[in-house]
């Protein structure tokens, strides 16, 4: 498949972005450097092009019932203008994708899904419509999206809108907000562990929004931020990335995200398997800190008691924490905090200790 350009591609090139092919999209992995961009988001602000994300509208009389069946979290408790993080699972409990669900009203929802999974997800959603009175529409090609993240995010965005942004609480949103003259949907959400907003508009409108935010944010130390720090930021904050901490082979229970799976909810896809797993868990994603020297990397083996007990899901020298840490999928008996195991780095075992995988918590 041909690699696609987001509506902001030319802006990335102008800003000196180092462009890579990510999930079928040309996107900047960094502009100035991953470390300075990471730091900017933690201490000031950063703006990300996330136009590659997929968006699906679900409309109809039975939209709520359909989503309760399709998704693992409880959609029934949402108010209008509220957002929830949830999984969409296979019958065996494996994850189709993780996503945000925006409730516009009882009969209208916006689902925001991973770029790499968009086609697969949309087909899965369609296949499961069955007798539900709903229409699912893939609007990904019509939507541009940026994420403005960091402690100065609200100050910056406030310069561009008359809306009182402090009224938008965490995991809530407002539609039809005027941002620098462009009509947008604005949610207080993100993937960095910092305060911030995700802003959706048309593919035409997003260029104005991007440039206006960069200009308005200059006095607040904003930096354009690439995919590189998007991953280090989400990782430090304990947020999963599909294909790493959760996947078709790693269920939300195994991934350690049980909070977003409501096992006492009426029937939903994957429920039986997830209930069974919850009672007898055999492998689990844990956080760990390396006690010896080196950086744990994705795919490195984890060993203990003379055998392989798992592998590293994500690993980094964490820029904010200045520690070599990782997540690993390991046999459940090695998942308790304080447990020690070894990570194989270039064929040498290096000691590590299980710690809370929410490595970084905002003050």
């Amino acid at each position, binding site marked *: 498949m041909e690699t696609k350009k987001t509506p902001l591609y030319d802006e990335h090139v102008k800003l000196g972005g*180092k462009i890579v092919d990510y999930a079928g999209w040309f996107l900047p992995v960094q502009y100035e450097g*991953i470390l300075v961009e990471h730091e900017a988001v933690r201490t000031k602000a950063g703006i990300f092009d996330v136009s590659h994300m997929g968006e699906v509208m679900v409309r109809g009389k039975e939209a709520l019932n359909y989503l309760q069946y399709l998704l693992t979290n409880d959609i029934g408790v949402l108010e209008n203008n509220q957002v929830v993080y949830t999984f969409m699972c296979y019958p065996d409990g494996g994850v189709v994708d993780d996503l945000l669900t925006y409730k516009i009203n009882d009969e209208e929802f916006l689902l925001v899904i991973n770029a790499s999974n968009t086609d697969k997800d949309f087909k899965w959603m369609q296949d499961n419509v069955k007798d539900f009175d709903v229409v699912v529409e893939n609007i990904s090609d019509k939507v541009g999206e940026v994420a403005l993240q960091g402690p100065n995010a609200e100050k910056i965005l406030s310069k561009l809108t008359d809306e009182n942004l402090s009224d938008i609480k965490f995991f809530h949103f407002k539609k039809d907000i005027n941002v620098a003259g462009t009509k947008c949907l604005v949610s207080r959400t993100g993937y960095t562990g910092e305060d911030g907003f995700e802003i959706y508009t048309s593919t035409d409108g997003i260029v104005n929004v991007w440039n206006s935010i960069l200009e308005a944010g200059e006095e607040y130390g904003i930096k354009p931020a690439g995919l590189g720090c998007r991953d*280090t930021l989400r990782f430090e904050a304990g947020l999963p990335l599909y294909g790493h901490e959760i996947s078709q082979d790693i269920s939300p229970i195994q991934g350690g995200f049980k909070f977003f799976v409501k096992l006492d909810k009426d029937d939903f896809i994957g429920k039986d398997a997830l209930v069974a797993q919850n009672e007898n868990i055999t492998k689990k994603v844990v956080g760990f800190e390396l006690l010896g020297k*080196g*950086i744990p*990397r994705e795919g490195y083996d984890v060993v203990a008691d003379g055998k392989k007990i798992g592998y590293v899901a994500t690993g*980094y*020298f964490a820029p904010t924490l200045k520690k*070599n840490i990782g997540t690993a999928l390991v046999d459940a008996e090695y998942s308790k905090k304080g447990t020690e195991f070894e990570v194989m780095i*270039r064929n040498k075992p290096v000691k590590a200790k299980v710690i809370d995988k929410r490595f970084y918590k905002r003050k």
Partner: protein
Amino acid sequence: MRVLKDLLYTKDHEWIKVDGNKAYVGVADYAQEQLGDIVYVELPDVDDEFEIEEAFGAVESVKAAADIYMPVSGKVLEINEALEDDPSLLNQDPYENWMILIELSDASQLDDLMNAKDYEKYLEEEA
């Protein structure tokens, strides 16, 4: 991309600066540029011996880990410990900040390395 005249280069973008039967070894500007922010450098122990093209250490950026290979066979005489304390020195000046000083075991192996001119040509082909 900076290429220094008096050095020899490998296809994996290591450089070597020969002085008699000793030589300094490091990574070329292209390598640090490709890697981005370098956050970890792994060096061998003094007196370790390596064959040509054997990995003697590693340089890691935020995103990637790269093995660093011997341009020629030799024995490690010194390591640049400053890199362990501040890996970003390799981003700042990868030629000033050598990784290891070695004693050559077979000086004839130098003949197969690229001089600055050939390396520049090689970089153009890579790009």
